[in-house]
């Protein structure tokens, strides 16, 4: 019954969004404010209805109602409650439902907050969001209906994909990804609204869109890091990024959104790059849909691919409509977007932003071409090929290096034009950071030129960004006599976007450093050990203690206890395992990681003897991996600082101010420090 009821809710929501989109359009055209209000109302109604359907699905999952097709597909009586609930997004239909729910939540929030704004921008944005919601409602009512009734009702199901129930991060990564992906619909809707309403020539609308872009961008950054972390902890090969189509799909919109967050400042300050920003906004949205399409349609081979179905054709149609419509729209308004300002000097922050955008866009196209090339090659030449790591590494490393360098140059340069003197004062001191980090890299044995270069550039840019903080704090300290802590909070509070940006920069640099170090200094060995025997990899020795097994409710677990030995003493133990699920003929590897600030010891159980007399274990030593996760947390922290609303009263005399309690910044929700 739950199934029928929930499906009815989805059907009603389909009509609600359809009605809202039509009445909204008519209302705007006919200047009927009450009709526009009805469109807003259907945004809220859709959210309520999809929420009901989502709760019904969770209820069906928890009560093991196998008459609901989705539950019969991913549920099982043995699965623990927690994994039962998160299997909501474990397979195709459930993830589409969750997607629709996130879209409903975003739409409701953004329309509610801006409902009183004058003009047609918000109504058109609401219509656009309703059209996107219509697409997902169609999917949910027909091809991806998770509430099919199954008859006869099975007594048990196969349970969720074991790879997805093997790690806690699976509870975190997909929701973050959806929050990031779906969040990009909001700025897109406002871009569309600006084009429809003619407000595109003004710059006011980008103030709304840029905040929502930053929110979505923060979620997307967190999702990418969480996804890397998940594949590192679960897949067992000791890597976190393989340029897999699905990984690329999440990375592409991140690149264009990052470009937008920078270039939008050029538009605000100098009135330039309007058309370009519009393209980035629309492109980011198209890339999120493209990413979903690539992962859900199964047209590219990937370890993460969902089951293929007819749903791909719906996505193809939708992406076709969006692409044609968006390009036509942007092309149509392009001559309205007259640039106000112009580039005054090559040595200015806007020039750096131009290069930043150039490189990020080139990066995006490189990844896009590499991802789609197998399809092109098969279409044009009829050969099956894959584009592997070498292509992506070779093509992107120069871009990555350049971008890391620009992270240091941008904040140091002023808007407009910088004199030779300013250039010297700003750009020379960070070289000290570059020299130190480059030397450290060489000293610990980095020989790959790119590795050394990235070490040096990370040093340069970290120095430059921290120096901006230092300069600002010093000025406040001198002018207002504030102590350093107060100076820091007031500095950040006074220009959250700017200083949040610098924090995000530092996070990116930490991630880059972690990746450069772990890639350069990764060492691994695989050996068959008897209890008591040990394996040594670059100075780290681990001894096999025993091979053991135990039965858990939903699975059997085989593990090998490894003791890390230093100077004859056991300093840590790890239990790499294999989990045997009853519905799977093959066990699921469960590697174990011992992390410290200097790096990871990564253990994976490769094979074992039935009597426990020996086991084959792989040990990978990778320095600085935890810095990647920590850096991801810092990036998110930067986004949170940047999004936080400005304080209302900004120019109160210093004496009249109450002592401001240090603003308790919300901690990053994921990718946090202690790995």
């Amino acid at each position, binding site marked *: 019954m739950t199934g029928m009821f929930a499906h009815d809710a989805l059907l009603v929501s389909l009509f609600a969004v359809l009605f809202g989109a039509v009445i909204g359009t008519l209302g705007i055209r006919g200047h009927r404010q009450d009709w526009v209000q009805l469109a807003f109302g259907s945004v809220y109604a859709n959210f309520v209805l999809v929420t009901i359907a989502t709760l019904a699905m969770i209820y069906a999952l928890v009560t093991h109602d196998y008459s609901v097709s989705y539950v019969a597909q991913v549920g099982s009586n043995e699965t623990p409650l927690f994994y039962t609930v998160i299997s909501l997004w474990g397979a195709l239909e459930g993830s589409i439902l969750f997607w629709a729910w996130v879209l409903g939540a975003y739409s409701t929030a953004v329309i509610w907050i801006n409902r009183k704004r004058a003009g047609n921008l918000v109504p058109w944005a609401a219509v656009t969001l309703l059209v996107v919601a219509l697409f997902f409602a169609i999917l949910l009512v027909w091809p991806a209906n998770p509430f099919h009734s199954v008859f006869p009702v099975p007594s048990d199901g*196969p349970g969720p994909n074991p790879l997805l129930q093997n790690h806690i991060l699976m509870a975190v990564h997909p929701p973050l990804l959806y929050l990031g992906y779906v969040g990009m619909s909001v700025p897109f809707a406002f871009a569309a609204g600006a084009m429809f309403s003619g407000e595109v020539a003004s710059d006011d609308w980008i103030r709304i869109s840029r905040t929502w872009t930053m929110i979505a961008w923060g979620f997307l950054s967190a999702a990418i890091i969480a996804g890397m972390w998940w594949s590192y902890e679960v897949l067992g090969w000791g890597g976190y990024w393989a340029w897999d189509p699905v990984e690329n799909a999440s990375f592409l919109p991140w690149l264009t959104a990052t470009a937008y967050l920078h270039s939008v400042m050029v538009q605000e300050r100098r009135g330039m790059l309007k058309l370009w920003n519009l393209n980035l906004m629309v492109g980011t949205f198209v890339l999120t849909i493209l990413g979903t399409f690539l992962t859900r349609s199964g047209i590219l081979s990937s370890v993460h691919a969902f089951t293929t179905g007819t749903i791909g054709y719906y996505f193809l149609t939708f992406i076709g409509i969006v692409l044609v419509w968006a390009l036509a729209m942007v092309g149509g308004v392009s001559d309205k977007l007259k640039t106000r300002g112009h580039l005054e000097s090559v040595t200015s922050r806007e020039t750096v932003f131009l290069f930043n955008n150039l490189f990020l866009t080139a990066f995006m196209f490189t990844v896009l071409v590499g991802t789609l090339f197998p399809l092109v090659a098969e279409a044009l030449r009829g050969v099956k090929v894959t584009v592997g790591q070498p292509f992506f590494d070779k093509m992107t490393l120069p871009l990555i290096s350049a971008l890391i360098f620009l992270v240091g140059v941008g904040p140091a340069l002023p808007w407009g034009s910088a004199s030779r003197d300013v250039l010297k004062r700003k750009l020379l001191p960070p070289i000290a950071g570059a020299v130190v980090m480059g030397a450290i890299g060489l000293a610990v044995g980095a020989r790959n030129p790119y590795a050394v270069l990235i070490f040096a550039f990370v040093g340069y840019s970290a120095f430059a960004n921290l120096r901006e903080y230092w300069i600002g704090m010093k000025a406040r300290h001198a002018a207002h006599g504030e102590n350093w802590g107060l100076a820091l909070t007031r500095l950040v509070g006074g220009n959250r976007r700017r200083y949040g940006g610098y924090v995000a920069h530092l996070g990116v640099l930490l991630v880059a450093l972690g990746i450069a170090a772990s890639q350069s200094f990764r060492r691994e060995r695989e050996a068959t050990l008897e209890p008591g025997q040990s394996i040594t990899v670059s100075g780290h020795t681990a001894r096999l203690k025993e091979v053991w097994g135990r039965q858990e409710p939903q699975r*059997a677990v085989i593990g090998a206890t490894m003791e890390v030995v230093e100077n004859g003493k056991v300093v840590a133990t790890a239990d790499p395992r294999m989990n045997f699920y009853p519905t799977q003929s093959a066990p699921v590897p469960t590697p174990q990681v011992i992390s410290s600030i200097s790096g990871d010891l990564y253990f994976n159980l490769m094979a074992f003897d039935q009597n426990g007399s020996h086991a084959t274990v792989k040990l990978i030593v990778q320095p600085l991996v935890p810095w990647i996760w920590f850096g991801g947390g810092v990036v998110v922290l930067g986004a949170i600082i940047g999004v936080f609303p400005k304080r209302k009263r900004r120019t109160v005399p210093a004496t009249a101010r109450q002592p401001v309690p240090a603003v308790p910044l919300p901690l990053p929700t994921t990718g946090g420090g202690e790995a």
Partner: protein
Amino acid sequence: MSKRNWAILVAVVLVATFGWLLYGGLNKNVVFFLTPKELLAKGADGYDVPVRLGGMVVPGTVQWDEKTLHLQFKVTDDSGTVLVHETGAPPQMFQPGMGVVVEGKFGRDNVFQATNLMVKHSNEYHPPKPGEKPEEMYKTLIKGSTP
């Protein structure tokens, strides 16, 4: 030339260079996906270039030495068979008769030296094959040991 034409020229040159770089990078770095039959049909051209070989593991040809970690097996489509050597434990899901993709190079000794072994697993859930129940692999371990 006007400023506008300069800008267009610069953009064209940039895009062309970038496209050329991409094209060159792709040409050098794509890995062909071949079946044993296609690989054998390439003759001398098939030697010593990175390839992904896809096919079925021939039952009865899998040999693994747990001491030296040497793994060998044969991969077949219906008309060609290639011997594959690899160092390392077989993936935990490895079973004779299943689809695999091996990455590596086909040597002049007609042995495919694999650097990477990927198991093709369908989205469906498979119960154990008769005689290959996982329980038989681990039940001796579960009885008499401590976690």
